[in-house]
């Protein structure tokens, strides 16, 4: 889906004179009729519940996500036990409860996915608005910065940063946001350039409105649709990127339950303990798929003309 300027030539909010249902209401109704989107929302709610209730699961099973149970969760040869009454989905290779870790891992995934997206969105919108509205040298400088960011090799920079600063959730969020904001800023910039020249902005400008007011009050509301769509697609990208970093041992402390780290652990054991590979992989797949499908649904709902 291309999210370029032409894609969102919807009527500016200002000019709209609609009776009855507002545009958001209409979009919501369209979204509700989209089966894929509804199922995706349900999956996301379930994953969110898994994350929210993680401490409850820890309480019920009596297994802290960090505590190792080498005597009960591992065979004497050190192989993890399979799913059972005590360890619902089995244990990982250090004898920790896989289910509890997956639940806590959902927290990390959602935390990283949502905060990185939020950060990238805010930053991207600000940069895009400035560059698009002012044009000239401001645009020149910012656009070049975006070019540089977009041409950076993601993983290499992440690896270097982790080596220099040390792995942490905050760093992971920052790295993901840093590499994601540029795409957002590009789209916002393109849109802003279009709106800058429109009659309603000309009008408020001639009334003496400040650039800040024009950007925030007149242009920004028109960008909500493309930004929402883009942001909803950024979430799964961020989740996968976090998993990638953790898989490579770069994301977070190795003890932290993270889906990527659990997958990395499984590489040595999947033949004897397939659950170690299957459960986190399925969870990761479902989550990212759900966010992606929901993003598609939101786009279709906001822009039915396509």
């Amino acid at each position, binding site marked *: 889906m291309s999210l370029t300027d032409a894609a969102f030539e919807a009527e500016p909010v200002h000019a709209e004179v609609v009776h009855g249902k507002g545009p958001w209401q209409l979009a919501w109704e369209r979204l509700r009729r989209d089966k894929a989107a509804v199922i995706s929302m349900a999956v996301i709610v379930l994953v969110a519940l898994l994350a929210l209730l993680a401490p409850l699961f820890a309480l019920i099973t009596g297994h802290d996500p*960090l*505590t*190792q149970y080498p005597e009960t969760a591992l065979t004497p040869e050190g*192989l993890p036990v399979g799913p059972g009454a005590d360890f619902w989905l089995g244990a990982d*290779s250090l*004898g920790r409860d896989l289910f509890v870790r997956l639940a806590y891992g959902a927290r990390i995934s959602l935390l990283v996915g949502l905060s990185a997206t939020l950060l990238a969105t805010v930053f991207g919108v600000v940069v895009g608005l400035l560059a698009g509205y002012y044009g000239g040298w401001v645009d020149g400088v910012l656009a070049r910065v975006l070019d540089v960011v977009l041409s950076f090799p993601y993983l290499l920079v992440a690896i270097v940063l982790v080596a220099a600063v040390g792995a942490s959730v905050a760093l992971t969020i920052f790295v993901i946001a840093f590499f994601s904001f540029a795409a957002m800023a590009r789209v916002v910039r393109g849109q802003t350039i279009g709106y800058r020249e429109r009659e309603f902005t000309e009008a408020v400008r001639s009334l003496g409105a400040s650039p800040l007011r024009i950007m925030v009050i007149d242009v920004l509301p028109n960008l909500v649709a493309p930004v929402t769509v883009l942001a909803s697609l950024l979430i799964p990208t961020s989740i996968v990127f976090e998993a990638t970093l953790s898989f490579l041992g770069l994301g977070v402390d*190795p*003890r932290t339950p993270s889906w990527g780290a659990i997958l990395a652990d499984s590489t040595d054991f999947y*033949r004897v*303990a397939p659950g170690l590979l299957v459960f986190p992989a399925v969870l990761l797949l479902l989550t990212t798929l759900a966010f992606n499908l929901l993003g598609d649904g939101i786009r279709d709902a906001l822009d039915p003309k396509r």
Partner: protein
Amino acid sequence: MRKRAGLLVPALAMVLSGVAGACGGGATTATGSGPQKGGMLRVVGSGDVDHLDPSSSYTVIAYNLGRTWTRQLVTYPAGGGISVAGEVVPDVAAALPKVSDDGKTYTFTLRPDVMWNTSPPRPIVAADFERGLKRLANPVQPSGGISYYTQTIDGFQEFFTAFQKQPKTAAGMAKFMNSTPIRGVQAVNPTTLRIQLTAPASDFLNIMALGFASAAPVEYEKYVPDGPDFRQNTISGGPYQITTYFAGRQIMLEHNPVWKQSSDPVRHRWVDRILVTLGQDSPDVVQQQLEAGVADLSWDQPVPTSAIPRLTGNPAYKVYEGSTLNPFLAFNMQSPNNNRALANVKVRQAINYVVNKAAIAQIYGGPKINSVLDGAIPPGSIGYDAAVRPYATPGGRGDVNRCKALLAEAGVTNLSLQFPYRTNGNHPKVAQSIAGDLTKCGITSQLIPTAPDDFYGRYLSSVQKSREGKWDIGAPGWIPDWYGNNARSIVVPLFDGRNYTEGSTNYGAYNDPAVNDLITRALTAPDAKAAEGLWRQTNARIMADAPIVPLTSQNVPIFHSERVRNTIYTPLTQQFDYTQLWLAS
């Protein structure tokens, strides 16, 4: 405790790296067919050698590689198992040296026809061995095994001290080496080397059999020891030569055209080339490659724990007996962190109590593959004492209450430890397991992921980083060179504080006068029996101070591809001797 030509033979060695520990018979999977020439032995693994320069190489992988291209006066034998693994045999020396009646003068006579692969080729001479010894003391990359030589050879300590003050340039070091003799080392003529000791040392030949004492050609004076230029310009006297060295990626060895079987009593040369491919961080992938036959041997990756139950009974799989401290937990007693808490013996004892050693054993495949250790000297080595286990807990599972009580006694709270770990093999799991145990006792740890090649050089063996507190605890491994009378290869390198310097393997800078004194007396004891009692006392004294947490002693499971034949196991390197292998067609 093996007598040979009036000498006792121990030695040291060590190593660190991947995993595992040692020994077993020099079994072979050969069927009826005899040796076959040709083919390329493909070795795959994770990390590069610590050092390529034999003067500083101190890992099993570098040591095993060195067997193919470096030469020593005397060396350890190929095969024969643990019982003869410490019995030194001649290499470039035509025979074992003549020893004077007072046991202090060794005279080596060299074979005249062992050649360097220089252009034109020229013989390896006594001066090359003298240069090899001198290079151990260089100020840029001093040998981790330097203390074996400074302890025994007359004048070596002075030489070392003076060399350390020299400029750290190739030219400056060459000038110093060429103008300064080691009093006890004389190249009498090209084929005669005389070495004078400060006192009789029953294990001197074992020291001379180490890779450290390799001959060094004059060309090496052009390079900083183990520097990038050195690594691209190695010169070989063995059956193979290094033709490609890409740091961290690939090492290719091919035939050394001037090597002759007739002038090498130990090595052979069956395969044409040896290709070491690095960068494969997953033991499981390495195992799959071996089973699929796309690789022949693992370089530094252990047989995956998960594969061991499945492989049992497979003819290409065997467990070799070991006697190691691998891994153990080292304390950085110089660390300024936590108000120098680790300098407090009670804190170290507390941690000794809390670590679940049985869980570490499980990580490495369970009780068939390794056993829990409670002393500083592992079984199978001189001085081992099953009765000395001051911090033993039931089943080796750890005792949280004792840990808490000792910490309270020490008045230490909120301990937070810097804990670097290697990112390959089982090291991340060992680190997490230990960190989990510490948590139970209220001790937090910062796990610091470290490239395998940086673990020792940038943390444990770095004087400056140790003093800065870049690490508090770390889980290295120790593997003695041979077995039996080998305390010089365990106790001295790990616990003698008198030679603590850059690259030291006494990671925590443990320095106890009583232990140092016991070591001296044991090393100069008239025979192994007398030494044994002294080593036992040393072990007890060390454990009272708790400078380490002994964890497990590991045997070595090895799996090889179907076509590998004549798998002679070398206890010292925990691998098969590359110079003995051939490939079935």
